[in-house]
């Protein structure tokens, strides 16, 4: 665990047991164990949790390219081909373009067998798109480039590559959704609330972008499940719904809290899935709109229903 002020001792990044490896100045990998506490109804890691991983991997890949500037996530997507069921799940990020005002990264999402060591052994770890594991999804991320300021955060471009670190072992003793204290206010409207506490802060002291994506996932799921409750026919063979895709646009930081989610557009389909557009607002900052997320929801197939 690096001796830095961020993340604090009690923080979601530590509880997820994330391990990061930076093999080069423009690539990075981040892994988490696929435990039940971060899983959705299909047993795979929730797309919102994958958003946390994607954000972290892309940030680690980008930071050296941006030197001396810093960054803020502008948009992020996760699309899954099938559930990310592990035993570990890895996000592999590579910088595609570094422009004057933005940086774009591509992130592959893979099921892998386990951690690469403790601490992570970068030299022994596989590298590049040909490395071990089975790809289950893809992510993209755009960073807004924040011009360097005196005293601001920065990582020299040639420092410590390759390097790896761990935020600690997975420390969740309950589902992550409970740990971030999400409360459902109105399921049909997708209205959820989450307190903005240091546990979910980013390095700016605002809401961590991946956590915002997770809140949006839960809002979209709740709204679509409510909307499909009366649509699915009696003969349909569907289980609980899961989100399999997120498209996140970050408009402003959530700084005060609580953060509230609502789903102004819900499109339910007879198969038990659907789409939702979720808006996140910072209630303590005059209900300022901070994030807009398109959520793709699918029904699961219950055990025993497969041929």
């Amino acid at each position, binding site marked *: 665990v690096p001796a830095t002020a961020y993340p604090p001792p009690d923080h979601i990044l530590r509880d997820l047991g994330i391990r990061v490896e930076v093999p080069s100045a423009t690539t990075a990998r981040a892994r988490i164990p696929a435990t039940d506490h971060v899983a959705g109804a299909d047993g795979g890691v929730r797309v919102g949790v994958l958003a946390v991983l994607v954000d972290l991997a892309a940030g680690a890949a980008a930071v050296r390219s941006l030197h001396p500037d810093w960054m803020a996530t*502008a*948009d992020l*997507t996760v*699309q*899954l*081909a*099938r559930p990310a069921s592990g035993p570990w799940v890895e996000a592999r990020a590579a910088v*595609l*373009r570094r422009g004057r*005002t*933005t940086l*774009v990264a*591509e992130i592959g999402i893979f099921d892998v067998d386990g951690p690469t060591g403790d601490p992570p052994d970068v030299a022994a770890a596989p590298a590049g798109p040909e490395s071990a594991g089975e*790809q*289950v*999804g*893809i992510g*993209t991320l*755009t960073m*807004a480039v924040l011009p360097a300021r005196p005293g601001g955060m920065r990582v020299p471009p040639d420092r410590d590559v390759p390097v790896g670190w761990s935020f600690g072992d997975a420390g969740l003793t309950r589902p992550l959704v409970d740990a971030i204290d999400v409360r459902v206010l109105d399921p049909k409207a997708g209205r959820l609330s989450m307190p903005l506490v240091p546990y979910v802060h980013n390095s700016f002291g605002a809401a961590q972008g991946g956590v915002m994506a997770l809140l949006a996932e839960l809002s979209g799921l709740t709204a679509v499940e409510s909307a499909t409750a009366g649509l699915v026919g009696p003969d349909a063979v569907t289980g609980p719904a899961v989100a399999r*895709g997120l*498209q996140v*646009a970050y*408009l*402003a930081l959530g700084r005060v809290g609580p953060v509230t989610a609502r789903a102004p*557009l819900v*499109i339910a*389909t007879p198969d038990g899935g*659907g*789409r939702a*557009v979720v808006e996140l607002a910072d209630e303590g900052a005059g209900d300022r*709109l901070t994030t*807009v997320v*398109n*959520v*793709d929801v699918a029904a699961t197939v219950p055990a025993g229903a497969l041929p």
Partner: protein
Amino acid sequence: VTVDPLDPLEPPAVDRRRHVADYFRIERWEPPDETATGPLTMEGRTPIDPHHRGPGGGLRTGALLTVVDTLGGLMSGLAVQPGWTVTTSMMATVAELSHRGPLRVTGRVLRQGRNSVVSALQVVDEGMGDRPVAATTMTCAVLDPAGMALDFERPLVFPMPPPTGDERTVEDFFCIEPGEGPVTRLRLEDRLRNPWGILHGGALAVLADEAACRVASPAGRTVAAADTVLHYLHPARTGPVEARATEIGRDGGRSLVRVGVHDAGADDRLVMLASVSVVAV
């Protein structure tokens, strides 16, 4: 394949500001009460003529994104005048692939910054009682338009263009070569360039859609692109333009496909990255 980007067979008198909008017959207007501070909302409509329909029975997703981009790009540009914009990313979730039409697009600017404009645009099927079709979010980078004249009479109203007589399919209109397999090529004809002289973003959207469908459609399976993410990384200027598709995985009747689009004539530069979910129809 070698194609002169200034193909002499192409008519030179194409109005690059209207050519694509005329083909799809896109009607666009802004509410009259919002012109004082820049348009926060804008609306548009496209009729879906028979030659526009794709494998899902409606406007194929690449074409839908072209229509959305045509409206959203104009809205974003007007929001930052005297500057202008270029689209850098589009994120679309598409719930309905079969449309009766016309489709109506409603856009609003979510965030207007110094360097970028973020907009949300939703699409409904007017012929199906305003049934929701898709929700999209797009980001545009703010540009200095240099010497380009960008004067508009406000509030802006572009009526629906009459049929042009051009009844090519969407793929033919955008010069996508017939074929199958993981590589799909587009001839960069001069009429496909936008006012900046680069390949129109809509052409790249349709190319990514077609490439994803080809790699995810084994024999006997009819498929269509649904949820799509596009990142425009560099302008495509030279051509030919080549889309290389890889199927990441398949679950039931749905595939997830990565498409990298390269400008083969410009050192094979990666000009766009797309991720597309493809569904059986």
